[in-house]
């Protein structure tokens, strides 16, 4: 089927896009129906502190509470809170997941430019929405949904401007591009710099391709020249932002001692973490097969896109058949992000860099792998011979199943995952009691942050009267919250808990208990 045929057979824009928007809305609605208001996670809870500090101080970088990677998300939520009058916790939970839907339109526009087909764009978007690693951060109350959406917008505006010949419209596209690019940098500096590096790598690949096909004038030169300007401009924007406009971004960068660590943080979408990122597979799921099942969409996309990329690359190398310009640009971006992904994993696994960096570039890679597969499906699979006609239908059913499985992974379904994000009304009641009774003291809330994070969001990030102390118990913590879910969670994790009998049971609502460690010395309360 030719490109023209595909365009001709594409359903009407509004209905198709509305379906995708509806799907995005349902995806965003799922955690709200699954957990109601009884859930939360660390990043959303931490960002609430920043947002509150921003509201109270009126500064984009409130002292001691600034979000080190950029101010855009806290500022946006602060504005929404003031504008709507809604509580912050409500915005972080409800807005955090429902605003996922905003990514749909920029992604669709971007994919349409990459594939030059609305059919392929729609399929690509469906594939992307089945990626758990992509959906997971978009359902949280963090910057990432906006960062990803802005990446899509930047790519769309950049590619669209390459086709534009009308000067006023071109100027509008360029202005829009740089505005979006600044917003991207302000949203997350390090994802933005990684994104810029990908553009630079794509530029190099396009330049090489132009040389290889000995056809620079036909399709390669405009992108090469434009990408060069864009890369330089974006590096300058990032440089100015990190060093002058938003000093907190420097803290995270310069806390790393070696120049290699800094480079990785800046260019490979890595982040500082305290734990081994690869241990999550072992501890995070009830079994390895379950992990593989809920991650199946990742592996399928990885495998299929790699095969398609290999075919395109071999076709270009062996036959010297120049592809369409949009296909070549997609190939170049896919190669660039794949290379960065591979590099980030290699440096991380090798231990060459500080052991506290974690790669998180897969969602960016998935953003470029999805259109590769989507374009192939649109171009090839749907025009399969009659005896293979069942194949697209089977792919459709598989996609629906994969989307459900991915949603389980993205929402940390507690029946399958060991990383729980929900808490219970009984735990909430016990914390309310602790706030009234244990003011100024610290309360251990379990081996993970689930109860603390959810409660912080539930109470709109206000400063609590009791200090919640999850994970490893502080030395001076003398009160412990143990609920049926905490014990079940520990049991699931293969952990044990021992409560010496001399501890005092100070609160019990049937499903959650608070113990007070019996004072050993008069210095204790």
């Amino acid at each position, binding site marked *: 089927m030719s490109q023209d045929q595909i365009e001709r057979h594409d359903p009407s824009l509004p*209905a198709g896009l509305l*379906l995708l928007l509806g799907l995005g809305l349902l995806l965003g609605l799922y955690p709200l129906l699954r*957990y109601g208001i009884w859930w939360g996670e660390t990043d959303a809870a931490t960002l609430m502190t920043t947002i509150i500090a921003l509201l109270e101080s009126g500064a984009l970088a409130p002292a001691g509470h600034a979000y080190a990677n950029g101010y855009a998300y806290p500022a946006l939520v602060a504005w929404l809170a003031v504008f709507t009058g809604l509580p912050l916790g409500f915005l972080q939970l409800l807005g955090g997941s429902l605003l996922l839907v905003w990514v749909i339109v920029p992604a669709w526009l971007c994919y349409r430019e990459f594939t030059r087909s609305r059919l392929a764009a729609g399929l690509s978007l469906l594939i992307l929405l089945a990626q758990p690693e992509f959906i997971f951060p978009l359902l949280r109350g963090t910057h990432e949904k906006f960062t990803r959406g802005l990446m899509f917008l930047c790519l769309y505006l950049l590619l669209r401007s390459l086709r534009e010949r009308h000067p006023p419209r071109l100027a509008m596209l360029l202005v829009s591009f740089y505005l979006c690019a600044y917003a991207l940098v302000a949203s997350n500096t390090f994802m933005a710099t990684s994104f810029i590096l990908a553009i630079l790598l794509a530029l190099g690949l396009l330049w090489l391709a132009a040389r290889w096909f000995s056809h620079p004038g036909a399709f390669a030169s405009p992108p090469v020249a434009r990408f060069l300007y864009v890369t330089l401009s974006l590096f300058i924007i990032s440089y100015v932002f990190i060093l002058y406009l938003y000093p907190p971004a420097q803290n995270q960068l310069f806390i790393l001692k070696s120049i290699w660590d800094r480079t990785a943080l800046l260019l490979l979408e890595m982040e500082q973490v305290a734990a081994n990122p690869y241990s999550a597979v072992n501890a995070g799921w009830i079994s390895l097969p379950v992990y593989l099942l809920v991650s199946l969409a990742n592996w399928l996309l990885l495998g299929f896109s790699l095969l398609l990329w290999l075919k395109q690359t071999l076709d270009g190398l062996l036959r010297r058949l120049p592809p369409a310009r949009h296909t070549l640009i997609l190939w170049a971006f896919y190669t660039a992000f794949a290379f960065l992904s591979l590099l980030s994993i290699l440096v991380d696994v090798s231990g060459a860099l500080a052991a506290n960096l974690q790669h998180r570039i897969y969602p960016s890679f998935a953003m470029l792998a999805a259109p590769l597969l989507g374009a192939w499906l649109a171009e090839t699979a749907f025009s399969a011979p009659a005896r293979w006609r069942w194949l697209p239908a089977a792919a459709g059913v598989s996609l629906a199943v994969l989307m459900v499985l991915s949603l389980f992974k993205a929402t940390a379904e507690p029946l399958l995952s060991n990383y729980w994000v929900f808490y219970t009304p009984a735990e909430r009641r016990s914390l309310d009691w602790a706030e009234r009774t244990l003011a100024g003291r610290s309360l251990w809330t379990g081996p993970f942050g689930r109860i603390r994070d959810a409660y912080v969001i539930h109470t709109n990030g206000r400063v609590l009267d009791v200090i919640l102390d999850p994970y490893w118990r502080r030395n001076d913590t003398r009160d412990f919250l143990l609920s049926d879910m905490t014990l079940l969670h520990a*049991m*699931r994790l293969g952990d044990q808990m021992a409560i010496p009998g001399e501890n005092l049971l100070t609160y019990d609502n049937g499903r959650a208990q608070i113990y007070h460690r019996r004072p*050993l010395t008069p210095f204790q309360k």
Partner: protein
Amino acid sequence: MPVNEVVYSWRTSQANRLEWEYKLSLSGSNEIASKVSFPDFDLQIMPYASLPSWVVSKYWVNQTFVVPEGRDYISSEGIYEWSTTEGVIADITKSGEVIPDSIWIEKDCISGSGPCDLSNAFTSIAEGLRGEYKFDDISLTRLYVSPMDARLHLQGAQAGLFNLGSDRQLRLHNLDGGAYLDGWTLEQASPDPAQPGQPLEGLYRLGERYLHFGGGRVRLFSAQSPESLFETLPPSDAPTWQAFRQKMAGVQPKDPAHLAAWLDGLESEIMQLSLSLAGVPAYQDGRYRFELFLGPGYQVSGRDELGLAGLPPGRYSVSYDGRSFRVEPLTPPRLSLSLTARPDDPLAPGRLYHLDLAATNRGLQASPDLQLVVRSECAGQGRELLRRPARLPADGRAAWSLTWQPPLGRQCWLSAALYDANEIALAQAVLDPPSTDLAAAGALPLLQASTQGYRALLAFILLLLIAGLAGLAYWRRARPEGLP
């Protein structure tokens, strides 16, 4: 919570040099509300002039009292030995010599990481110094003079040590845990300060009787004299200092190396035995208990209050309840340990295990210092669940309890043991509960807890909708090509 440390040294002489006669080291948690103002700032401290009276009027958690006996102690700051919070210096002349682990013992006490068991922190002291300590007991600091040795002591002191020089030391005891010291053991010091020395002579007050041993004899005296000659607060200002000075001027300390002489003219002898005493008497449940060794041909003179007549030679346990003595053949510690599930909460998969531990000593000899250790062994991985110090008196018992949540799907067994200082298990118990499987852990309760009931159905419907909508979006794109 504030933590205060006070070092308060004073003297009674008016000599114009920095010579100190007494020192109190105190730690506690007292609010300091007063401020001292300076031109540019205020300091939240006690004003210098009122500091002594503030110290004397407050309650303190840990207290030590150090007295240089028969030697000069000259320093610009006071007496350094036996601090209560900064690690225990035994002898300031041996620069930096802090009793091992004492700083951690003291810090654990203050932070609450461990009990305030400072007995292992005060195991030695410089020659010519006498130190006493009292910890984990919030009280005012009071002093008294004992008629026995005619020296000033810390009221309520739990123990003390007096370094007499020439490798001899006098160990001070508080057998009944009361307000006054009631036992003195003269020892040949061990090269290892942490180890007890070789007893040479001992004098102990057992309620209405004094027990003395030394020179191959054990003697029993009546105990009619009061336990203190006078009591006083530490001096806090000029009038109290004068009063203190006058009271102390009339006190003539007795020779610490001849304990038998302390009773001369004070108490009357009741009986005398040509036998030996093993160890320091212990006090438990209103009874004093000590061990006697009756050698071949032992002799008893005076009134035989112990009722030893006719007993064959051997080792005996003697107990005294304040009225009469009881003598029984000594049996060594016989320890047993049990680990059981509470009867009203039987072991069942998926539940917490409420466990009881009980240790018993059926011997008439006290156990050595022990450690109770409870461990779980799950799929080859061991984990310590509980560790507690323990010491079982003669014919005594102790109990602990533990709530344990086992890991999922692993066969575990629990073991408990009482270990002595050489890590030798003197008693053991094992419990082998059934393993907890996934069903017991409860997928359904988890689903109910995480969805709060009705939302489970809605979430399921939404999942179907998402799958349906994804399929529909896909189908709309595939339809023009005529998919079946």
